């Protein structure tokens, strides 16, 4: 009966076909046209059949068909009472964290306006207890919903726990680390939100009561399962190349290069210092004018071929060149050496 009145008002003010038909099907009596006169006042205010005004409304229902004017007036009364709607709240609320085997920790008090500001931690041996009494307005009463929402402040992941509530509104929640889902335990900080709500028109309440950091010991941290596979962007991987082969500083190489190169003038210097000379060259050329230059040129040609092999040509080209030069060197060499022997036999060497 209570709801019927409210529905009529709502249906009229909404002026919406579907909503009206929906309510009509539930309500055997068609809405009274008189109520449309009050829709301006009723439109923005939740009409709540709360216990305090219920007797008033019952009277209104009885009188409604008889006098439109009276009904309008009574609805106005109801609107006045609705301007101070009752709300769900709680009292005598405490939160206590106590360690296993140790003395119970201090009771932290909190109210719907002042949450716990202390930084709290929950170790794996700790148990957390929340006690409170729920109230609708000023009377202690049990709401339909009394949940503690626990949210990871970073990932926004949220879980919930429901309280044990007696009819008198006395509520209790015990929580240990074991009860909290593993996905939340690795969070840097957990936000505890108390949520009270129920059917009827009383304003529900949600309030963050505390921030708690779960503390995991090393073993528990290791035992945390891998998060489940999720289709998303993966971490980037960049190949790390092996270090390039390194050379000593160029200065050192250049010093030793100079030292090695200096050996050549040193060598020739020593030879000429020991009176080496090329005095027999004209004589040899006169004795065998073909063999000597060709022999020496073929030796130079060998070196040139080896240089070419080092820089450009391949082994087959090298072998071909050597095959051409070798008989030349052999023939001219034997002639040249014959001339050298002739000089030795003449006692000129």
């Amino acid at each position, binding site marked *: 009966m209570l709801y019927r009145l409210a529905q009529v008002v709502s249906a009229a003010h909404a002026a919406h076909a579907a909503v009206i038909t929906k309510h009509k099907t539930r309500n055997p009596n068609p809405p009274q046209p008189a109520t449309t006169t009050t829709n301006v006042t009723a439109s923005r205010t939740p009409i709540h059949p709360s216990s305090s005004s219920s007797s008033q409304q019952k009277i209104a229902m009885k009188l409604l068909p008889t006098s439109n004017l009276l009904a309008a007036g009574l609805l106005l009364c109801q609107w006045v009472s609705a301007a101070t709607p009752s709300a769900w709240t709680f009292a005598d609320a405490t939160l206590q964290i106590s360690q296993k085997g140790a003395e119970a920790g201090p009771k932290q008090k909190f109210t719907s306006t002042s949450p716990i500001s202390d930084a709290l931690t929950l170790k794996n041996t700790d148990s957390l207890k929340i006690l409170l009494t729920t109230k609708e307005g000023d009377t202690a009463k049990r709401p*339909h919903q009394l*949940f503690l929402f626990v949210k990871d402040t970073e990932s926004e992941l949220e879980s919930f726990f429901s309280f044990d509530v007696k009819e008198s509104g006395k509520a209790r929640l015990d929580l240990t680390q074991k009860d909290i889902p593993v996905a939340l335990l690795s969070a840097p900080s957990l936000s505890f939100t108390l949520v009270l709500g129920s*059917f009827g028109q009383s304003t529900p309440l949600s309030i963050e009561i505390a921030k708690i950091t779960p503390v995991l010991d090393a073993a528990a941290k290791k035992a945390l399962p891998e998060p489940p596979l999720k289709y998303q962007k993966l971490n980037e*991987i960049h190949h790390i190349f092996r270090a390039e082969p390194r050379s000593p500083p160029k200065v050192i*190489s250049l010093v030793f290069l100079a030292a090695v190169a200096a*050996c050549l003038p040193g060598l020739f210097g020593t030879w000429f210092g020991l*009176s080496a000379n090329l005095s*027999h060259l004209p004589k040899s050329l006169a004795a065998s004018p073909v063999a000597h230059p060709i022999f020496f040129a073929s030796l130079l040609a060998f070196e040139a071929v080896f240089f070419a092999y080092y820089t450009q040509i391949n082994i087959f080209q090298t072998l071909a060149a050597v095959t051409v030069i070798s008989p030349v060197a052999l023939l001219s060499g034997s002639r040249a050496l014959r001339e*050298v022997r002739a000089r030795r036999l003449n006692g000129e060497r």
Partner: protein
Amino acid sequence: MGLTLRSVLTALISLVSLSQGISLTGPRTLLVLEDDVKTQFQTLISDLEARGFTTTTHTPKSTTLSLFQHEERVYDNIIIFPTKLKGLGPNLPSSSFLKHATAGGNILILLPSSEDDNVPAAIAELATQVDIFLPPKGFAVVNHFDLADQVEPEHNTLLVDLPSFQSDTKNYFNSGEDKAAKLLYRGAGLALGSSPLVQPILKAPRFAYSYDTKEASSFADDENVFSAGKQLALVAGVQTRNNARITFVGGADLLADKSFTKVARTNQMSGNRAFAKDVTAWTFKETGVLRVDGIEHWGEEFGQGVVNGDVYRIKHDVTFSIALSEYSYDHFQPYVAPADDAVQFEFTMLDPYYRIPLSASSSPLTQHKNSTTYSTTFKTPDQHGVFTFTVNYKRPFLSNVHEKRAVTVRHFAHNEWTRSWGISGSWPWIAGIWVVVVGWIGFVGLWLWSKPVVAEGKGKKKQ
């Protein structure tokens, strides 16, 4: 000859699909419903027909209904409407739905909105098989915080915001004009497993909860609450590994005619009709389907002259590009990845050596009209072997892209190494060789032509 025939056939097929301009799976849609239910969903059905779907209606108990004929799918899409029956008919066991999905068909399942109605056993079984959990009969979602209707005593018509996702997920479910529109929802809700194939499309408001209306009418205690808050899904979509889609709608009223109205409290039109279009479009593959239009890769060695070659060298720059397009109702359009997401590319031999993001290329090698070309250039690792260019792009609500191209990565050829004179540490050794060469030539010359210096007396200078 064979080629021309095939191209003519392809052209014909594409022409046919163009003229229909709908779902990539196909237009044949089966509606499983009883006649009295059909009247509640007139708009949904006529909207589907207007988009080109052809509907066939069967009652759940129909004896003539068969999802397969000659082992081929008879229907492309199936919509199961809520029914009063406890079970679907003998032709609709849960295995038939799985077989339908395995063959690539899509399924949209509407669960009853009223807590007094049954969920058929076959549907509940199918749900568990795809990692979705339904509450038993009698559960309803309530929200005391944001009442859709101030005077409704049950508080079970929910006002839900249009879905929003993390910034790396593409949102296919708020295409309606009014982004602030609220959805009207009534139903029991769903709980989802941790499978990556299951995605919540619509989540419950933060303080809403699903409770047993029979057992916990006065107080929602721990045992009689199914789930609450963001953990409670209202609409969930499954995309199987072969890209078939199965969507569960926790309360059928979400898509029913009676929800396509104004919201009493805000006096605005509800977003349900546009949302219904989005949900059916996603489920029946009108949105969120990706297509690879082309893959090209080339290396530093041959430049762009040799594209998609077989061999690359180690430590050479290689460019890889992939052209992606996405389907939107009746045409393919360039696919643009969300800002915080990235199309990632892997260069793999057993393990990925590289996993790097591909960026949209402004000057691709080959221009594709309706696709975005994503590309990147990287240096092949100093490891030879058979590598794979891999693009494994799996994201919520998008069809899977898994492309692989194997190539050989060879070592340096013998003439590609640094020459000895290029290595400063070798300079003294090279100099040593040339000193010996010159010294030997000089020695030969001196030996041939040096004249002995006659010392005092008859002695001979020996070398």
